[in-house]
């Protein structure tokens, strides 16, 4: 009778040596270089895995589980080390990126250096403002830091209401917790305008409100953590859903061109009732159907609706005498569509070649 040694006999020694290799990696590059030998195909663990086939089936299961457990431990240690080294690399990058304004030497400079260029978002905002001014709207501004009342509650989104989940909110460290926010939309400016108009007795209101808003979300090709919206508000006598649909259509033609039209689709916003998403003819395929519009011929631009009676009540407007509507959509998104910018992140990159391209 002779003993056969299990291929896993030295498993714990291998594990110790792999863990040591992980700890020895001093930089992210080193660790990445070692990756195939520690957790990848060229690791001793993979070799051992293959050798399991030689075992009797009844032993194979237990050995496999044992090996799996070690693999898990090694992978965890590897990931943890990678996290540490990534943090280190980030800190170093930030350090390198640190500014030393002491280096800035003020000398006399002749201007112009070269032709300048307006920002693409600012230019788009101006075009939108011009269209709305021509349609009879006054342009209004509002603050970017708002209280809970303006950003949420007066807009019929009470504290802790599930509808708040529709917005990923940055809270500002002032006052009681979660009572001051970076505005998540331009709608709070509506509340300011209506409160002021009631106070000053200056109703009706026909305003658009462009501005920067924030969402607590990692930027991607279609979304930025900071973005620009333009909001419209009409409060007047005898305003109906038909007026809303008409204003949206007039704007669509005026801004996007006569062959682009609009349609409304039921939706939910706490501050309007009835509410709608508004869609426009796909500007890429002109309604034929393409990848951008998922073959529907339509793309979503923004939201709109008739002012909810709860909002009118919150600002003290008599809903029997006055009615109105609101709409809002992304300025960055308009810029993206109009200039066919694939990745929104290009807008915050401030690459002068990009800025020059769109003047």
């Amino acid at each position, binding site marked *: 009778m002779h003993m056969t040694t299990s291929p896993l006999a030295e498993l714990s020694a291998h594990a110790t040596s792999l863990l040591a290799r992980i700890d020895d990696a001093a930089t992210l590059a080193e660790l990445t270089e070692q990756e195939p030998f520690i957790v990848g195909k060229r690791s001793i663990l993979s070799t051992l895995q293959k050798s399991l086939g030689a075992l009797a089936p009844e032993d194979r299961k237990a050995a496999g589980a044992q090996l799996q457990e070690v693999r898990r431990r090694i992978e965890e240690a590897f990931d943890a080390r990678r996290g540490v080294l990534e943090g280190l690399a980030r800190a170093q990058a*930030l350090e390198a*990126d640190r*500014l030393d304004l002491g280096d*800035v030497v*003020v000398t006399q400079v002749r*201007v112009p*250096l*070269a*032709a*300048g*260029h307006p920002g693409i978002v*600012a230019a788009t905002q*101006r075009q939108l*403002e011009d269209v709305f001014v021509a*349609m*009879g*709207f*006054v*342009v209004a*501004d509002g603050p970017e830091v708002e209280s809970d*009342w*303006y950003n949420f*509650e007066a807009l019929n989104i009470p*504290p*802790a209401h*599930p*509808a708040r989940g529709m917005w990923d909110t*940055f809270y*500002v*460290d*002032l*006052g009681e917790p979660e*009572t001051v926010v970076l505005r998540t939309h331009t709608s709070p400016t509506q509340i300011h305008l209506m409160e002021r108009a009631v106070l000053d007795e200056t109703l*009706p209101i026909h305003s658009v409100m462009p501005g*920067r808003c*924030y969402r607590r979300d990692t930027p991607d090709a279609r979304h930025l*953590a*900071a973005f620009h919206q333009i909001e419209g508000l009409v409060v007047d006598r005898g305003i*109906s*859903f*038909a*007026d809303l*649909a*008409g*204003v949206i259509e007039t704007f669509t033609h005026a801004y996007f061109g006569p062959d682009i039209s609009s349609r*409304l689709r*039921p939706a*939910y916003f706490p501050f309007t*009732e*009835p509410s*709608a998403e508004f869609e426009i003819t796909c500007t890429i395929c002109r309604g034929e159907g393409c990848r951008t519009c998922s073959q529907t011929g339509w793309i979503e631009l923004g939201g709109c609706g*008739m002012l*909810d009676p709860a909002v009118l009540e919150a600002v003290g407007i008599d809903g029997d005498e006055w*009615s109105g509507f609101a709409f809002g959509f992304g300025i960055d998104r308009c810029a993206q569509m109009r200039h066919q910018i694939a990745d929104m992140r290009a807008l915050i990159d*401030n*690459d*002068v*070649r990009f*800025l*020059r391209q769109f003047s």
Partner: protein
Amino acid sequence: MKIPLSWLSDFVDLPESVAQLTGILDDLGLVVEGVENVGEGLEDVVVARIDAIRAIEGADRVRLVTVDAGEGPLDIVCGATNFNVGNHVPLAPVGAVLPGGFEIAQRKMRGVTSNGMLCSARELRLSDDHEGLYLLDGVIEPVVGQPLLTALGVTPDVVLDISVEGNRPDAWSVLGVARDLATRLGRPLREPARVEPDATEDSSSFAGARIDDPDLCGRLTVSVLRNVVVGPSPAHLARRLTLAGMRPISNVVDASNLVMLELGQPTHPYDAAHVARRTLAARRARVGEVLTTLDGVERVLAQPGRGLGDTGEDCVIVDGEDRVLGLAGIMGGAASEISAATTDVLLEAAYFDPMTIARSSKRHALRSEASNRFERGVDPELALKAVGRFVALLRESNPEVLWLAAPLDETGIVPVPPTVSLRDGDLERALGVDLDHREVRAILEGLRFGVSGEGPWRVTAPSARLDVRTGAAGRADVIEEIARLYGYSRLPRRTPSWPEPGALSDRQRIRRRVRDTVVDLGVHESWTPTLGSDDDFDLLAPGQPRVRITNPLAAEESVLRSSMLVGLVRAWAKNAERGLGDVALGELGNVFIHPDVAAIPRRTRGGVRGAVSLALPQENERLSVVLARGGDLVGAGESVGDPRRGGAFH
């Protein structure tokens, strides 16, 4: 919400094509976000029996398997190991095209020829299971050579992924979507089959139910189910669940999930043997109570959370000895879970106060299919109807199950369905057109609103429509429903006009002039981040109080900028790296001054109902420019005045 059309069509006759259907759903505000064809590509897959398994010389990952699919022995190379001789598995023969377009061809490897592919359930898109081949033994009575679809009783299906808006708790179910469709199409709605309690012993002789806090729990029904035999669900019900995106677990748990998906009522089954005194009660959690939920997390209850209006209230379900069994309407604990040994079940079907569920769910960062529904409002009258459906479904696999008579039914505070008046002219004032009254009535009645009286109509919301409010707001809610079902696209458009002219303010005009001027001087207008770090702003004004974000995504983005210069210099440095350093960058934007040090702190309304006066940061609009020549930064400047308040640019 994923809905297989085979399920939807139980309740309403569907339009002829899927494209028509998705168009109608979109138009109803039930936006279709995805359409998946399932069972497609399985036409050629057949049932095969494993006859022999052999090792292949030089290959340790794959083996040569001989199968019979009715046409004699076939050799197939296979990498899975979860089967033995005599098992039955799906075979995709040479020439078959699997879901996703994968075509099976004859392949030669290691000197042997493989004549097809033996498949896992995931490769066939029948479930997520990819542990090995899909073993048919035990699932069906396998017949060698039979087409798999026939063997499983599966017909190809289409699954729609529908996004339901937050104000439509009634539509968050297969039946709810069917109700909207039936109303729009003018077709009858077929209710699902239900059973009534058995006329045997009374539930109260076996179990107890109690509501201690009627403001948190509006209704608590406890049904007693006896002679329960826990086992797998019938294949067609398991498949329904799988298509709807949930994993089949056991007939009892599956029935609970099916009822929730179909009718919108979450239910919770407890093993009666593990509920003290077989009594369930709903009450407010007490300070210091602790519960370990099914996900293994220990949760401290009744702790006020952050944010306005959160009092820390949790509604819990307790047993007859007042021990906490679960977080009501959100998640249960492990102790009273259904197991293979369960024979008696207490089935809870309840109505919980939506805001209580919403706050608890947010505070504990714990969301479930049940909490998502309860926080939007489940029809308070649905509970026992849902149990009737639950028992009907369970009987398919457990025919001897008894539902004891007179289920326990405790009532707390439930919302009263509002009645709103709809006067002549209301529709025209809101929509700009008067609609045909017969059509309006048909819409309302199709959605199960009660309509009585003639001018004004008295319209009563069904109990499922907890989104409908009272008074003027309720009228707007009803009008939205009418417009939605009538079709927004059929409503007129009119472009309004008013005597007041459109205009820019003086400040906006100045802003444009400043912008034009700096661009003319050669500046590239930039957009730099509003959020930076302490280190950034310490460079310019060390130690100044800063406006901070409570929940930043990163420490480098945790402070509101007090200057744009840092962002601009950084933007310049990036351009310089690209060899574009000879440039002027500028930005016109807001900087934020902490109210403690602001010259003119902004006071505004805050707190609940805007009743508190808050000091907010002063937002100054500034112009900032950096200038570089010969690859070096030669100048940087920022206006210090506030143009809104007549300050000058420096």
